[in-house]
């Protein structure tokens, strides 16, 4: 028998048992759809978290004072020394390192802000103009021009803060009081919402020199550095470490972290989770496979006489085995097709219900689901097919 004819014959058999075909198809399709939707969900969650990190700024390297790592040992701890401050000069020394695109020193504190008789607590960021591009912040109005030297007393407000203090929407150019100092509003940030638990709509940004005197400190909270490219992150990190070690009398008393490292950890966690949920979904495919096997065994005993006839007409065992195998394969393929369609529809539904979640089914999951469906179909048909092939034709024909 030629393969093409076997395909046609088995296809005709499948479509002639319509209800049976539909039920098997449904079982297969649900299994495949479950894999697709759950991986879309897992992968969507991963992308959501990754994009949250990306909104912090790309190729970001963060320097903080003190050693957070326990490995290696920090000699200062033994002799009771506190780590040296991270100063503005430290920050400036990093600006010329190879691979550094820009840097921004950062101080963070809380202060009272008041304007037009309204008073509230606010988180204050002290930095330079570079902070805005590094943190991917956007201006709705105005600008921020602070450098690392002495600056005019200008302030940039988060969108929600600006609305609260100046409900008329005329924040630009207004004067206000922050702590015991007066500032002029030179910019309002565009609304960006929360990113990693830090709401840029509720902050105020002032020049670094003003922040240090307002908060009464010479020590920086962080230095943010943006590398020129992803591949420059590691060399820049090493250069920062060695530069600061030299500046701090040979002691490595700063911690350099990259967003990349945190991001890839989250990435790995969510990938593992996605695998886990798709594995759970694959169980439903296996159950569908058992159902298929059961139905095919029934089909073999239903069609005993027909199998006997095929043998009498000269079909080999191989022919009969192949017919039953292809029959299951058709069902598995159709089930996989419908399942993929259902899965994509379900993922679309998820995206409509939760617009923040980019629940797109990854291509590998769809392919794996199809492959699993087909393999399950083949595995499930092996026993029925070989049972059909081994039927004794005399007994098979005597059954009516």
């Amino acid at each position: 028998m030629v393969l093409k004819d076997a395909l046609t014959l088995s296809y005709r058999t499948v479509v002639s048992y319509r209800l049976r075909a539909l039920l098997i198809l449904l079982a297969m399709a649900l299994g495949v759809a479950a894999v697709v939707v759950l991986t879309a969900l897992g992968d969507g969650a991963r992308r959501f978290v990754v994009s949250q990190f990306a909104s912090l700024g790309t190729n970001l390297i963060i320097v903080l004072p003190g050693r957070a790592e326990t490995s290696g040992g920090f000699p200062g701890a033994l002799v009771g020394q506190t780590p040296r401050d991270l100063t503005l000069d430290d920050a400036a020394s990093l600006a010329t390192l190879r691979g550094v695109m820009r840097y921004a020193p950062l101080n963070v504190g809380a202060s009272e802000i008041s304007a037009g008789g309204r008073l509230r607590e606010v988180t204050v960021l002290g930095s330079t103009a570079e902070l805005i591009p590094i943190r991917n912040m956007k201006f709705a109005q105005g600008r921020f021009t602070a450098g690392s030297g002495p600056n005019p007393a200008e302030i940039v407000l988060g969108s929600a803060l600006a609305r609260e203090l100046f409900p008329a929407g005329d924040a630009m150019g207004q004067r206000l009081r922050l702590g015991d100092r007066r500032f002029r509003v030179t910019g309002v940030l565009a609304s960006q919402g929360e990113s990693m638990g830090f709401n840029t709509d509720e902050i105020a940004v002032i020049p670094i020199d003003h922040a240090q005197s307002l908060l009464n400190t010479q020590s920086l909270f962080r230095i943010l550095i943006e590398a020129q490219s992803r591949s420059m992150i590691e060399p820049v990190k090493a250069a920062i470490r060695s530069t600061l070690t030299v500046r701090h009398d040979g002691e490595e008393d700063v911690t350099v972290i990259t967003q990349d490292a945190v991001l890839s950890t989250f990435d790995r966690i969510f990938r593992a989770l996605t695998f886990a949920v798709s594995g759970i979904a694959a169980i439903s495919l296996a159950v569908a496979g058992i159902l298929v096997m059961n139905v095919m065994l029934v089909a073999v005993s239903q069609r005993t006489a027909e199998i006997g006839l095929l043998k009498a007409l000269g079909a080999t065992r191989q022919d009969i085995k192949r017919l039953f195998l292809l029959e299951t394969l058709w069902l598995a393929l159709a089930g996989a097709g419908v399942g993929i369609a259902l899965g994509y529809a379900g993922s679309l539904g998820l995206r409509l219900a939760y617009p923040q979640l980019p629940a797109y089914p990854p291509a590998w999951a769809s392919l794996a689901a199809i492959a699993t469906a087909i393999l399950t179909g083949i595995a499930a048909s092996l026993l029925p097919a070989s049972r059909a092939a081994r039927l004794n034709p005399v007994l098979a024909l005597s059954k009516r």
Partner: protein
Amino acid sequence: MIELSGISRIFTMGDQEVRALNRINLRIGPGEYLSVMGPSGSGKSTLLNIIGLLDLPTHGTYRLESRDVTALSEAEQAKVRRERIGFIFQSFHLVPRLTAAENIELPLILEGLPPAERQARVQAALQQIDLSDRAHHRPAELSGGQRQRVAIARATILNPAVLLADEPTGNLDHKTGAEVVALLEKLHHAGTTVIVVTHDRELGGRAHRRIQMRDGEIVGDES
């Protein structure tokens, strides 16, 4: 052409042995028209199944066209069944999902012939059994006689050397039975060896050589 020597077929049922065929010796020449008669359980169907290679003898040798076919592999035996042997059953055994034409086409598909040649052969066969206008009807839409004619067309589409008929008229009334017998005899005249197993004395009597069986043995052989 068919040479059975010392053929026995023993079935084991529980701890009891049933000898369905007991040391049968039989030679059938090419183009013979032969009937096998005998009471139920006399072994005539078993004999037919062994000649048709659906069953294998426990002892003895079976030569078909001078070849020892009992020693062939399963696939080779299937090929012999496909190309050299045609079966006709009392209950027709048509595949209900397939049309008359598709039922006749089955052996050609199993043989692996190209579709164009299959179509031509099926058309010719339908013409021969006078059912060209019923080509696309399913078995359920055909009368008993028409079904058996389709089954005969299917059995002979690859020009087998032997046609084995097990009670071919058993499910038919007298008139349609006669049509089926006429078709079988037409095939015999065209040179096919025809072996008919039957209870029907009239049908059995028409054969040129008549074999009587009882308890797994041949007790009469007249021609």
